């Protein structure tokens, strides 16, 4: 969220103001528990929103902050989901074990691919991430002895949360769990983007040519953030597998990579809350539209996407930030 700092000129106060919690942020997180009271019948949907928001947050770290475009981010999401699902099949059904294992496997895959990712940009990078995404999808398809292939993974058995709360059809435990995971990861990400490392990431996004000239090892930074991003995507996938109790090839689909990119661009990349707002709008709208006509769902999304990138380059949040700063300068 962009914060107006008015006439503060002291550099210490200025930087403190940049990373301070804005009242709207408190409001946002307070509102996130409203579904329990207002839409108790839609907690499964709310849980999907939280998971998608988490996935979008992971993409924001590389795209919004470091300027690394990916069209294959579902690979890490899917790796997290499959790892958790497969482990549960063999008796490791505890949610925390699954979460940890899913994030570790996704993180290892992220770390391995980061060595390629760090060396390329632009179209090449898009093609590489796309290709890696296809590769993982096809590998999961072929390894049907492990993944169940196109039939989906059979026998996923997730244990109860803390040994007490089961993930049932009402989604009470599911939303509680996804929301808590989202919030914890969000706190970590928020800390990260306000750190020296976060500043260097923005430097890479703003001018990768200048970075080596100020002594910055851009490749090492990119490898690091790509790995962290993969870990978070893996966590999101693991949470989906656990809360839904199923894992199918859909978690690795190209469509999922494309959707999360759209969500982030719609909400506003590089704004911390962009992916969260984008996920909320996207999932709710899809739920509403698919009730009317599922085939036509991508029509309004297409229109919205074109309109946003043409008229609101910073996404919905970027547009709102511009609006408030214009209003503020009018008033003062």
């Amino acid at each position: 969220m962009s914060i107006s700092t008015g006439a503060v000129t002291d550099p210490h106060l200025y930087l403190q103001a940049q990373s301070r919690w804005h009242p709207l942020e408190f409001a946002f997180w307070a509102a996130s528990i409203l579904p329990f009271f207002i839409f108790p019948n839609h907690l499964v949907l709310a849980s999907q929103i939280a998971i998608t928001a988490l996935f979008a947050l992971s993409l924001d770290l590389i795209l919004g902050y470091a300027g690394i475009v990916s069209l294959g981010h579902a690979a890490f999401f899917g790796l997290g989901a499959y790892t958790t699902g497969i482990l549960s099949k063999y008796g490791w059904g505890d949610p925390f074990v699954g979460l940890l294992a899913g994030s570790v496997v996704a993180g290892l895959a992220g770390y391995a691919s980061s060595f390629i990712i760090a060396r390329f940009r632009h179209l090449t990078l898009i093609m590489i991430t796309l290709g890696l995404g296809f590769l993982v999808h096809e590998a999961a398809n072929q390894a049907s002895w492990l993944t169940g292939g196109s039939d989906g993974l059979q026998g996923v058995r997730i244990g109860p949360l803390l040994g007490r709360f089961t993930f049932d059809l009402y989604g009470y435990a599911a939303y509680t769990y996804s929301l808590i995971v989202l919030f914890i990861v969000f706190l970590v990400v928020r800390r990260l983007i306000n750190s020296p490392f976060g500043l260097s990431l923005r430097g890479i996004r703003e001018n990768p040519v200048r970075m080596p000239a100020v002594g910055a090892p851009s490749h090492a930074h990119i490898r690091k953030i790509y790995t962290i991003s993969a870990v978070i995507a893996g966590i999101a996938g693991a949470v989906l597998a656990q809360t839904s109790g199923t894992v199918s090839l859909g978690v690795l689909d190209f469509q999922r990579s494309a959707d999360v990119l759209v969500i982030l661009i719609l909400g506003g990349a590089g704004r911390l809350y962009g992916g969260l707002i984008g996920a909320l709008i996207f999932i709710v709208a899809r739920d509403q539209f698919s009730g009317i006509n599922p085939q036509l769902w991508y029509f309004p999304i297409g229109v919205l996407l074109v309109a946003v990138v043409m008229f609101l380059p910073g996404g919905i949040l970027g547009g709102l930030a511009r609006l408030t700063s214009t209003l503020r300068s009018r008033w003062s």
Partner: protein
Amino acid sequence: MSATVLSTRGLDKSFGSLIVAKDIALNLPQGERYALIGPNGAGKTTLINLMTGMLQPDGGRIFLGDEDITALKPEDRVKRGLVRTFQINALFPRLTPLEAVMLAVCERRQDAGTWWRRLPAYRDAIEEAHTILESLKLGAVCHRPTHELAYGQQRLLEIALALATKPKVLLLDEPAAGVPKEESAELFSVISDLSKDIAILFIEHDMNVVFRFASRIIVMVSGQILVEGSPKEISAHPRVREVYLGRSHHG
């Protein structure tokens, strides 16, 4: 003369059939202010690119002090104190000057990998960044996004970013390019006031500025060093007058 901090031996570079550096041997002593002059396309920027590692030479060696740095990556040369600025602004448009200089300071202090501490906790880094900006008269605009700064201020920020790395050798590629004449003299007086511990090599087309601020001058023509000498020797050199001073030279 004091010890040489930067030197090259037999540097060669060509782009296809175009030779842009041929057998370049250069010695920059501690604390000196050298000017590198030559007509457009002489290969001056290319020479800086070669020395800072942004281009790989076809042949030859580069030394920083006694160390052969020919194979080092650009960021590692910066860490050892060999730093440049750019002829065409290469800044961070949506960062503020304070953030940009903080970035460079944090990289130098090896803090840039830290992701669990908030930026405001680095009080002395902030202090240092702010001091650099104030010394270049950028204190008043240090919280504005870089792309909103006036052009002359952006040129100063180029230098601020370089200073934040604590250079031993500073290579300034036309620091006053595009700056009006009056401001350019001011900018150069800032440069000449920089610590005498820093050896400076600057590229500049305005001969008044060159003669005023350079302790020695290197003349480059078509990828070769034509002559090197004191301002007095250079102004009297017949070949220099012919190829360089004899005609209007600013491009």
